[in-house]
């Protein structure tokens, strides 16, 4: 966990520039990971991550220390990513032949040339909350507690998502004749 105990006093003392210079490297990968988990697109996730840090820059002078810094940052990230996802979705339509073909190919049962690509494809097909939990948990080998904080969900709920995701992946990989290893 980034050294919030070093950042918060700087914010409260009005030394926003110094606080921000510590905050960006400390939270860069977490903010990006959370955005990536929601958007599933690296370029879009990076754009959202930049937008989040710009928002934090503007909001830091108003941070009063009542909310936990990490919880506050993750909430801004979730909201920004979901807004970006809503802006993108109307552009995709199953009536578009290219989009339909891509969706069809994503469900192909042919033996994949790249085993990792096959596992990624199966992860992409997981229900949204399970996919997000898996992404956040394995992206940086984070604890379940931190994943729960990033998702804004109870710890037991995250454990359930991870358990069901693993079971689903094992079953899917087995049904397709793919070995887990």
């Amino acid at each position, binding site marked *: 966990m980034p050294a919030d105990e070093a950042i918060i006093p700087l914010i409260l003392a009005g030394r926003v520039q110094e606080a921000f210079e510590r905050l960006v490297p400390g939270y860069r990968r977490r903010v990006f990971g959370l955005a990536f988990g929601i958007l599933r697109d690296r370029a879009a996730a990076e754009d959202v991550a*930049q937008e989040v840090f710009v928002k934090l820059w503007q909001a830091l002078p108003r941070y009063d220390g009542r909310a936990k810094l990490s919880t506050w940052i993750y909430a801004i990230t979730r909201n920004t990513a979901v807004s970006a996802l809503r802006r993108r979705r109307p552009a995709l339509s199953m009536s578009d032949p290219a989009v339909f073909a891509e969706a069809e190919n994503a469900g192909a049962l042919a033996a994949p040339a790249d085993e*990792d690509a096959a596992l990624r494809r199966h992860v992409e097909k997981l229900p949204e909350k399970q996919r997000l939990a898996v992404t956040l948990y*394995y992206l940086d080998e984070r604890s379940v507690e931190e994943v729960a904080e990033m998702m804004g969900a109870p710890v037991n709920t995250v454990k359930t998502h991870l358990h069901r995701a693993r079971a689903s992946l094992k079953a899917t990989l087995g049904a397709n004749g793919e070995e*887990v290893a």
Partner: protein
Amino acid sequence: MNGEDERLERRLREIFRGVDTTAGFEARVMQRIAALPKVTAADLRAQFDRGSEVVRRRLRREAWSNAATVAGIGASAGAVVWRYAPEIMRWAEGGGAAGMEFWLITAGVLAATIAGLWPFRARLTGVL
């Protein structure tokens, strides 16, 4: 955790390894911040004035609403007294008022005073 589970764990960690921002991310963040419009003292003053005007309008609306409420209560009480004037006169002449305890009358007067002044409590607490 059995062998199959361990292998799945290892593969899941592997597919997410290296998922990160591209080089120069922090520099691009600072560029976006540098490109933000600068807020001047005049902007802050205008924002404050707009906020003050919104508050003033809301207080004016509340004052009219409170005045209408008091007038409505007063008109209703007057209408009740007008309608039942003969009964009230008979009660008063029959010694009904004299039969009441002093404190009941006092409590009634106080309640009526508080009800009448309630809409103006904000201004009164500021004065007191």
